[in-house]
């Protein structure tokens, strides 16, 4: 009757409850948190060489953050009741905090930081531009048109202060997403105290890789030769984050294997029969080990810049494949075995419909469209380049 299911599963488990949309959700929030942390490296920790990607990282974070709640809304059985989570939250629920964490991060961190950072530019645009654009930028100034030395110093100080608040907020945002999964004690694949930390570091990896990639692509389309010092620094940070992330995941894996609890047999079956392609091949070999090797060779090998850039480019794409697989393996993987620990279930991906592949592609492309719009409105390049 259900030939694709093996062993015994509880009757209510034939339907898999969190599908592709919920895979996309942690992937998007991870990119937000990672991109912001990258931006803060420049601002708070004064890594001056990363200056060229600072604004791009902020805009990337904002674009992905805007799309992040969409998969959640589309997934709800009653989307019209979604705001009940804000009006009448159940305080004890990890999920109920999403709205507050999200609102805090969007309103108090990202929008404010971007506004303070761009305020001078916005004021200048509102004076230079003509027609509708002039009024549009004038509205964006929110009436604060003072660009005297003193006012700009205040902007800088405010921006720095927000970044300092922003780092723990970014940690909170994605650590929190990890907690949603890690705190489900009914599910041995999810239930791990390391989950929020693994999520956080994988977020940093994905965010840095995404901004890295976007930086190279935008430079390519603007016919600019990328700043190699900046790229090399990005590669270093990406490498460090990947090494930490991979070590944490291996620690989790070895810990489970060594403890060898009741669930170890079914989890072993899960990896061998259901997740071999997405975990061993896609996440570990293609998405982690290959790019780590690629970045090490490109960064520390004696290669011409052109070759180096190409290797960085390919590696950052592979990292995205790896991190998406990680999300898939956590979210879908955690539902591919029965809580009776006696059988494996199945997930059939649909093409059409709210949970379908087309919808997911749309949700993954949408942030780039939004980012393109943002870049047009608020060019993230240094002033000289824009002109």
């Amino acid at each position, binding site marked *: 009757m259900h030939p694709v299911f093996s062993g015994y599963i*509880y*009757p209510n488990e034939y339907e898999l409850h969190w599908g592709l949309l919920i895979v996309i959700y942690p992937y998007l929030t991870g990119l937000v948190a990672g991109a912001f942390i990258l931006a803060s490296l420049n601002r708070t920790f004064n890594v001056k060489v990363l200056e060229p990607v600072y604004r791009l990282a902020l805009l990337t974070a904002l674009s992905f953050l805007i799309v992040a709640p969409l998969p959640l809304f589309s997934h709800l059985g*009653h989307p019209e009741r979604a705001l009940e989570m804000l009006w009448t939250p159940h305080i004890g629920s990890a*999920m109920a905090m999403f709205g507050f964490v999200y609102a805090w991060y969007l309103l108090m961190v990202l929008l404010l930081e971007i506004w303070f950072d761009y305020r001078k530019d916005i004021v200048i645009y509102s004076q230079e531009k003509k027609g509708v654009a002039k009024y549009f930028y004038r509205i964006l100034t929110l009436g604060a048109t003072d660009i005297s030395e003193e006012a700009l110093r205040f902007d800088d100080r405010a921006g720095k202060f927000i970044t300092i608040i922003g780092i723990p907020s970014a940690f909170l945002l994605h650590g929190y997403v990890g907690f949603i999964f890690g705190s*489900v004690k009914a599910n041995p694949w999810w239930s791990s105290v390391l989950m929020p930390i693994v999520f956080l570091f994988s977020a940093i990896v994905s965010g840095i890789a995404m901004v890295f990639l976007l930086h190279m692509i935008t430079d390519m389309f603007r016919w600019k030769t990328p700043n190699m010092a900046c790229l090399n620094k990005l590669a270093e940070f990406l490498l460090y984050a990947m090494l930490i992330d991979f070590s944490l995941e291996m620690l989790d894996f070895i810990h489970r294997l060594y403890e060898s609890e009741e669930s170890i047999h079914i989890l072993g079956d899960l990896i061998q029969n259901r997740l071999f392609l997405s975990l061993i091949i896609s996440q570990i070999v293609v998405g982690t080990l290959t790019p780590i090797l690629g970045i090490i060779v490109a960064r520390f090998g004696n290669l011409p810049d052109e070759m180096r850039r190409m290797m960085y480019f390919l590696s950052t794409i592979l990292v995205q494949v790896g991190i998406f697989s990680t999300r898939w393996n956590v979210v879908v993987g955690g539902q591919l075995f029965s809580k009776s620990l006696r059988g494996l279930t199945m997930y059939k991906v649909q093409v059409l419909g709210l949970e379908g592949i087309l919808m997911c592609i749309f949700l993954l492309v949408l942030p780039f469209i939004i980012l393109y719009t943002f870049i047009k409105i608020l060019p993230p390049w240094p002033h000289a380049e824009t002109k």
Partner: protein
Amino acid sequence: MIKESTSMTRREFLEICLKSFPLFVFFPTFWIDELLAFDAETYDPTKHNYAMGIDIDKCIGCGRCVAACKIENDVPKEQEYFRTWVERYVVSTDGETQVDSPNGGIDGFPVLNSDETILKSFFVPKLCNHCSNPPCVQVCPVGATFKSRDGVVLIDEKYCVGCRYCIQACPYGARYMHPEKHVADKCTMCYHRITKGKLPACVEVCPTKARIFGELGQQSSPILRFLRFNDTRTLKSELNTKPKIFYAGADGEVR
């Protein structure tokens, strides 16, 4: 004037009675039922603490409980949705355990081939464990699933947002997403019946009295007798969910 409007003469009273007589004659009986169900109005949930016992040795796997539950609670007929179901465990002499539950056991079970390698087999009815420390209630973002004061875990279907977090959090697979209502659904212990002093449908129809329903706080309750005279255990007790479905004679393999 005031006296006139509030008092009634004997003659007036008899007149009104006579005039309203046809109303009583044609009064639909279900209305009377409603009126007599005055108890429901005075039902005090704080005075109850419901629980259920399952006597594994008595269950014959006939699946009547599953069928009764589906009918009583309008559970979707498809075989992916159950508020209660029955599992069959077959333990072989080499210690291997096979479990099955074809269509939730609603039509009974296929006959086992007589085989000397079978050590034992038994049936295990399953349902929501109505935990005292329910993980589903903890994770619900809007509080749509809650523990009632009489110890039953319920879902407010007019409030559930359908995020399915509770389904993920339930270690027993007791919850499903209702395909038409798009909210989480599960066993309510037939709350509409028990608050009127009736038994849950599954308990009512069980031909062997394998399901024992009662109240933990009442000395005369069958559940206390069941707990007193049987070695019982709860499922997945290591998760500290504190279930209120107690199993007698359940092998350690049951989870």
